[in-house]
């Protein structure tokens, strides 16, 4: 199999900046990842870590002040950052779709659910109105909306949060995209509804075979959904690997700290160990490692140099000098 066909999406050294009055803010600072068809990639990080901006950069739906300043986004081997507006329109919706965090604000309140669904289908396929209607009803049934025909005539405010998110998923999948980007799809929902939506996404992935990029801050959601995980901090990737690599063999101090600071089933009666300090200000990026000011194990080199991504195992990469030191200690004799 050639390189072009193995990955459905390949992001290489992506840089995205926002040009604000206060100066250039590098929200995404050299992100690379690959996505295989039918797999789920999780991007996890705190607010301001650049996880959503990464997703928006792939879709090229950044705010006006935002711009991709470097890197490549390869869809089936083609660099889509060089595509014009028209080509991108064809890309969005039919090849790659996105669902947003807040299903209330991402649906248009003055149009019925049906007309919004039909619009998406008419725009991206050559179906006529009648066929588009049938397709919309079919999609609503697929995502588990009861009485789809009467729902088609309803407005978004008449539906509950979980229902609205189902409509969003139906809309995103109506044109059978290869990639579905889910930007905090369940953050605004209650846990029982969250469970419904996550199960639904898994089911649909099995049925339709699309790849999912799951953007979230919830490590619990990531653990149950993703094949591969990207941990982001300050616009950079700290660590990437399989779910097991990240949760059981984490090799970056930020990931370790994050896992120590959340209550899990096995530490409920122990004290949590928080990460000190406050999240990074993107306007005042440190020269060295972004996590360095909050890192307990920071060394001199961390202050001045950015750590390179280092291979910990076949599937596992981490950008932390701690690994270098450990590798030195372990591999000294061989070198």
């Amino acid at each position: 199999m050639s390189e072009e066909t193995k990955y459905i999406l390949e992001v290489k050294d992506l840089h995205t900046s926002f040009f604000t009055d206060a100066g250039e803010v590098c929200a995404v600072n050299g992100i690379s990842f690959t996505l295989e068809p039918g797999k789920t990639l999780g991007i996890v990080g705190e607010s301001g870590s650049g996880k959503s901006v990464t997703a928006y950069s792939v879709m090229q739906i950044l705010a006006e002040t935002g711009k991709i300043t470097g890197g490549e986004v390869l869809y089936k081997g083609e660099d889509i950052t060089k595509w014009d507006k028209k080509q991108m329109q064809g890309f969005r919706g039919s090849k790659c779709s996105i669902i947003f965090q807040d299903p209330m604000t991402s649906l248009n309140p003055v149009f019925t659910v049906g007309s919004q669904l039909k619009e998406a289908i008419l725009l991206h396929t050559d179906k006529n109105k009648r066929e588009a209607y049938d397709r919309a009803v079919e999609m609503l049934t697929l995502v588990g909306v009861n009485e789809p025909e009467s729902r088609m005539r309803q407005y978004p405010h008449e539906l509950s949060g979980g229902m609205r998110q189902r409509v969003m998923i139906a809309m995103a999948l109506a044109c059978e995209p290869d990639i579905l980007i889910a930007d905090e799809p369940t953050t605004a929902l209650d846990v029982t509804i969250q469970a419904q939506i996550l199960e639904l996404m898994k089911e649909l992935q099995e049925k339709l075979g699309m790849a999912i990029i799951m953007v979230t801050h919830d490590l619990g959601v990531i653990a149950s959904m993703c094949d591969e995980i990207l941990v982001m901090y300050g616009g950079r990737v700290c660590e990437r690997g399989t779910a097991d690599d990240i949760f059981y063999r984490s090799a970056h101090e930020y990931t370790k700290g994050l896992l120590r600071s959340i209550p899990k089933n096995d530490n409920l009666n122990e004290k949590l160990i928080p990460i000190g300090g406050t999240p990074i200000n993107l306007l005042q990026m440190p020269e060295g490692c972004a996590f360095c000011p909050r890192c307990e194990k920071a060394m001199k080199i961390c202050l001045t140099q950015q750590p390179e991504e280092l291979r910990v195992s076949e599937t596992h990469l981490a950008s932390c000098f701690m690994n270098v030191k450990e590798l030195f200690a372990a591999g000294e004799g061989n070198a």
Partner: protein
Amino acid sequence: MENKNLLEVSHLKQYFPVRQGFHRIPLKAVDDVSFTIKPGETLGLVGESGCGKTTVGRTLLRLYQPTGGRIVFDGEVLFDSGEQYDDNGKLITDGEGRPVMGTRIDVDMLPYRKQMQMVFQDPYSSLNPRMTVEDIIGEPLDVHKLYSSKKERREKILSLMETVGLNAEHAMRYAHEFSGGQRQRIGIARALAVNPKFIVCDEPVSALDVSIQAQVVNMFEELQEKLGVAYLFIAHDLLVVHHISDRIAVMYLGKVVEIADADELNANPMHPYTLSLLSAVPIPDPETARKSNRIVLEGDVPSPLRMPSGCPFRTRCRYATEQCAMEMPPLSDRGNGHFTACWNK
């Protein structure tokens, strides 16, 4: 002293009138809720949005005028609607179904606010943007006249800031100059200013980033150890609630459906709603996630304006029987301080 409760809430009701066309119908936000909190204890209150958990907290502090029930704090009755209940918890009525009314008690809350305080969910909107941190923390001191000189006021404020881990140099800054976690610390310092015995924490960590949540959760625990303050900890994140609470109450549509020790509830949930709630929580551990068998609830929470008859959960419950539609099951003791309101479990 051991058995004395700091707070006793019984048959608390809070209805809000809602207009539907020509009619005004009551929205039963909190319907017949009873629980107790001991000094220095943390009671966690969990449930989905709209189940009335925030309303319980606010009604306790009398930020709303309760529709019915009785609130006793530290041996003193703060509110009593006068309705009387028999030993089985049934409302005592006269021949025509009207409740037999006793004396109504409704005290002035100002002196009690010194002992009961609140920390709010959103650290961005719960602090006045036009006040300095010193004035925000000092306001409760002003209201309750807790200082004799300006110097004493300042000293108290600075020591409070130190208690919650804020830098004393920041006293003259405004709220917008702080991050979310620091703002929440300001809110906590404000609640602590009057030396309360009881604090209602209404989703105090939900708006914070994961790495900051642990800092604030730890501070709540440390303050409790140091000051012996009791919490009603309201949150929807079950893992956080389990971590911080001694006991947990689970609410669904205005009613408490289960109440038990935190560990007991997690190990041995009885109510079908608690069961599905616990299984729905995404556990940050891939191994458990792969093994776990999620009980996915069907449908949505019914509107509190069109409450199902009998048990409110019966429309989504897979054990529901005819009896569930007839009558709300009472919160009954299953031993070990574990109470559940279910006919079938």
